[in-house]
C-alpha cells in the first residue's frame, strides 16, 4: 500500500478551488429557478383549484421519491431527445450545466414549494385580515406583513435545503460537469488513480467549510429577522 501523503492535500486543495465558481453558480441558479417553480406550486396548493392542487401534490410526491442521480440521468439523456422530436431544437451541444440546472430546479422546486407553503400557513390568518382591514391592498398585505413573518419561519428549513442541494449537486460530475467534484476526478485520472484518497479528503474539507459558512450565515440572518418578534413578546 502506498503511504498516505497528507502534504498533497493542501496542494490539491487550491487546484480544486479553481472550479469553485461553477459549484456556486449551479447552487445559486438552482435556488433561483427552483424558487420560481416552488412559488407556482405553493400558490397552486394554497389558493388553486381542485385540479391544480392534485397536480401539485402528485408532482411533489413524485419528486420526493426520486433519487437525484436518476433524475439527473433522465434529464441528461431524455431532454435532448424530447426537444429534438417535439420542437426540433438540437441541444446536444449545450453546456452540461444546463442539464444540471434543469434537474435540480425540478427536484428542489418541490421541496421549496413545501417550505414556502408551510411557512405561509404558519403565519396567523388574522394578520392578513388586520392588514387588509386598515386599508392595505392584498398585494401590500402579502408583501409587507405576511412575507417578512413567513421568511423568518422558513429560514431554518431553507438553510437545510441549501445544504442538501449543495451535497446533491456533487453528483453533477457523473454527467461530466467540471465543478469541484469534476475537477477532483480529473485530477485523479491525471495522476493515473494515485492520490485518490488525498483528493477526496480535500474535497470533503471544501464541502464541509461551505456547509459551515452557510449555517453561520443563516443563523446570523435568523437572529436579525427574529429581532422584531422577540421585542413584541417581551
Amino acid at each position, binding site marked *: *500500500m502506498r503511504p498516505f501523503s497528507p502534504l498533497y492535500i493542501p496542494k490539491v486543495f487550491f487546484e480544486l478551488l479553481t472550479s469553485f465558481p461553477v459549484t456556486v453558480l449551479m447552487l445559486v441558479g438552482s435556488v433561483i429557478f427552483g424558487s420560481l417553480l416552488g412559488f407556482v406550486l405553493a400558490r397552486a396548493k394554497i389558493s388553486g383549484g381542485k385540479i391544480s392542487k392534485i397536480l401539485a401534490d402528485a408532482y411533489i*410526491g*413524485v419528486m*420526493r*421519491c*426520486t*433519487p*437525484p*442521480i*436518476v*433524475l439527473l*440521468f*433522465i434529464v441528461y*439523456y*431524455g431532454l435532448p*431527445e*424530447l426537444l*429534438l*422530436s*417535439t420542437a426540433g431544437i438540437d441541444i446536444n451541444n449545450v453546456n452540461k450545466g444546463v442539464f444540471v440546472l434543469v434537474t435540480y430546479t425540478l427536484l428542489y422546486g418541490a421541496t421549496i414549494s413545501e417550505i414556502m407553503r408551510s411557512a405561509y400557513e404558519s403565519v396567523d390568518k388574522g394578520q392578513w385580515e388586520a392588514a387588509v382591514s386598515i386599508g392595505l391592498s392584498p398585494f401590500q398585505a402579502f408583501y409587507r406583513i405576511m412575507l417578512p413573518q413567513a421568511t423568518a419561519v422558513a429560514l431554518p428549513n431553507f438553510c437545510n435545503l441549501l*445544504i442538501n442541494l*449543495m*451535497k*446533491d*449537486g*456533487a*453528483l453533477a460530475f457523473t454527467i461530466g460537469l467540471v465543478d469541484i*467534484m469534476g475537477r477532483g476526478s480529473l485530477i485523479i485520472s491525471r495522476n493515473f488513480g494515485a492520490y*485518490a*484518497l488525498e483528493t*477526496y*479528503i480535500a*474535497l*470533503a474539507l471544501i*464541502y*464541509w467549510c*461551505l*456547509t*459551515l459558512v452557510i449555517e453561520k450565515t443563516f443563523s446570523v440572518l435568523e437572529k436579525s429577522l427574529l429581532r422584531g418578534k422577540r421585542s413584541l413578546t417581551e
Partner: protein
Amino acid sequence: MELDVKFMIETFFQALSGIPVTLSITAVALIISTPVAFFMAVSKIYNIKIIKQLVSAYVSFIRGTPVVLQILIIYSLLPSLFNSIAKGIGWNINVFDINPIIYAYIVFSINTCAGLSEIFRSALLTVNKGQLEAALSIGMSAVQAYVRIIIPQALVTAIPNICNLTINLIKGTSLAFMMTVKDITAIAKIAASYGYNYIEAYLDILFIYIILCSLIQLLFSMLEKRFGSYKTLAGTTAGTK
C-alpha cells in the same frame, strides 16, 4: 422520441430483482445505527465531555459532505486498509473477494448514524423532564424509565422524521452502484448499456423508487397511528367528558 416499450417492461421486471439489495442496505444501515445513534444522542443530552465534542464534529462532518464523496472516500480507503490489517494479523484472505455490499453497509450506517442521532436527540428533548422524575420517584430504575416511559413517547414525535430519513436513505442507496453493488440502478444500467436504452432504463428505476417510497410512507403513516394512538384516545375521552 420513441420509447422502446418492450425493453422497458423487460428491464422493469429485471430491475425488480435489485429491490432486496436496496432494502437490505437500508435495513442493515438502520439496524446498526439505531443503538449507536441512541447513545450518541444521550451522550449529547447529558453533556458527557469529550464524547459530546466528538459526536458534534462527526455529525457536522457527515452533514456537511456529499454522500458520493463519503462513498468514494470509504471505497478508496477501506479495501487497502483491510488488506494491510489482514496481512498484519496473518489472515490469508483476499480482500477483493469481499462482497462490495459490505462497504455499502458501512458507508450508509456511518451516514445514517449522524442523522438518526439528531432525530433521537430532538425527540428525547420533547419529552417533559417531569416524566423521568415521576418514573424514578415511583421506584423504576433509569433503564426502566427510559424503556417504558421516555422512549415510547419520544418515538411518536420521532416517527415522521425517521420516515424522512428512511426515504432519503433509500434514495441514497441508488449511489451504491459506484461500489459495484448490483442494486436496482446497477441492474437497469447494465441492461441499458447493451442497446443504449438509457432513458427507458432510468424511467424504470424512477417507477420502482416511486412505488418503493410510497409503500414506505404508507407503512410509516400506519406506524404513526399505532404509536400515537394513546394521544388520540386521550384526546377523544377529554372531548367527550
